[in-house]
């Protein structure tokens, strides 16, 4: 479904991504893992056509990445949606939450007002938010609620692929777990393909079937999640990443 071939991206002559190639099939879920500055977010922006690659190709269902023409962009975004990192400003602060969520429906569908309201309420409930909140401005939401609202907005047009760029990174551990569970249930229900970008390997089991590790813009390895703890087979860098998240766990256990 999503096909990435020999993707390169340079910014001001500095290579950010080098020779990236992978694919995602219908309903599959892939995690992209790497530390800060490894090019994960740039990759997400390239797939979302928010930036253009220096060279290489991105195809979705055989269509190439749009570079001009509103129609081709619209078509692209109807199939691929993204939930950005929680920065608390991806929803327009001058609109009510209902208007924010209505936006993709207005642009992508021909629903009338009543149908749009029905859809928004359906997804608002699906991500576990209270209907009364819809009248508020985005600024009134807590961090966890905000990400749920963004998730609902991304899912409203029933995309085939959802990209989650560090979606849970700013949330506390309990909320992270809730969000992951929510994602798993929605993915099962809608048969959605998922590209989950994170720096935290421990979040992935149960959510993603495959993992790709990025280091300094290069693809280190791509493997099945079931082989994550198989240290003999893993690249030393993957093991370091895994151990660093384990270290917190050990430190925590010593404290308690």
């Amino acid at each position, binding site marked *: 479904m999503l096909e990435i071939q020999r993707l390169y991206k340079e910014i001001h002559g500095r290579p950010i991504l080098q020779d990236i190639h992978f694919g995602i099939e219908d309903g599959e879920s892939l995690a992209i893992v790497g530390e800060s500055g490894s090019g994960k977010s740039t990759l997400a922006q390239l797939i979302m056509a*928010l930036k253009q690659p220096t060279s290489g190709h991105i195809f979705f269902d055989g269509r190439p990445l749009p570079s001009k023409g*509103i129609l081709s962009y*619209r078509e692209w*975004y109807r199939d691929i949606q993204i939930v950005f990192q929680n920065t608390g400003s991806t929803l*327009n602060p001058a609109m009510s939450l209902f208007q924010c969520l209505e*936006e993709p429906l207005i*642009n992508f569908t021909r629903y009338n007002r009543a149908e749009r309201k029905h859809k928004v309420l359906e997804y608002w409930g699906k991500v576990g938010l209270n209907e009364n909140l819809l009248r508020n401005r985005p600024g009134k939401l807590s961090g966890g609620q905000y990400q749920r609202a963004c998730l609902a907005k991304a899912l409203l047009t029933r995309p085939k692929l959802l990209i989650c760029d560090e979606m849970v990174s700013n949330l506390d551990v309990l909320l992270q777990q809730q969000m992951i569970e929510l994602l798993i249930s929605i993915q099962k229900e809608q048969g959605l393909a998922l590209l989950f970008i994170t720096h935290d390997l421990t979040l992935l089991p149960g959510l993603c079937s495959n993992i790709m590790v990025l280091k300094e813009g290069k693809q280190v390895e791509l493997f099945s999640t079931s082989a994550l703890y198989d240290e003999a087979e893993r690249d030393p860098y993957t093991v370091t990443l895994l151990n660093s998240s384990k270290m917190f766990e050990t430190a925590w256990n010593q404290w308690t």
Partner: protein
Amino acid sequence: MISIIRANKLPTAALLYIILLIITGLAAPWISPYDPFHTNHQQKLLPPSIAHPFGTDYLGRDLLSRVIHGTSESVFPVFIVLSVVMLIGLLVGTWSAFLGNKLDMLMMSLTDIFTALPSMLLTIVVVGFLGFGMENVYFAVILSWWAKYVRIIRGLIHDVKKEPYITASRVSGAFGLRIITRHMIPNIMPQIGTMLILDVSKVILTLSGLSFLGIGAQPPSPEWGVMLLDGKNYLQVAPWMGFFPGFMIFLTAASFQIIGERLRRER
């Protein structure tokens, strides 16, 4: 509601005054006690009394009626001038910032030229070319003010453009004009609104100042600046002739300023 008013006594008073002023201006033909242009030589230069609360001028015209009628000539044009200036600012400023690159550079150089010219001088030169009269003054004032609004709006849009919600709105299928009208302009409106209200008093002072200099409204217009000019010649004989229009200009400009300052503190 009452607690808000109690905490903002002065701005509330200013707001009430402005509402009253606008109603007075609109209802002028019905509420003014006399015809503002009717001269009566038996009653010239009368001091304020019950029959003539603001007194009469050197032609015996009732000053209160003239001040009331003057509202529509002194205050309302300000709104029109500022609306035109803001419209130009929004159109040119947003497109300039939105498209960026060469057009943006060209526009900014052009506005640089206009902001560099002293606005009073530019106004006088324009009126010198086009002739006296209120319409020419409005045009001249617009000409000397539009560049400031284009620059400020362009700057605001330029900042808003980098906000994550603008990127996010693209992904939600909003492009071009839709991004501008639905996502950018609503987010800069609070700043522009405050700026507009603060500028109302400046434009009032400019317009009545130009009339006072004799290049704006012409007698027998009851424009406050013109009345002030009339009053200047009779300052020692009939000080009320200059006092009332002058005081109205002061009160109106101050009220808009007070409200503007209050709004600015809000943010």
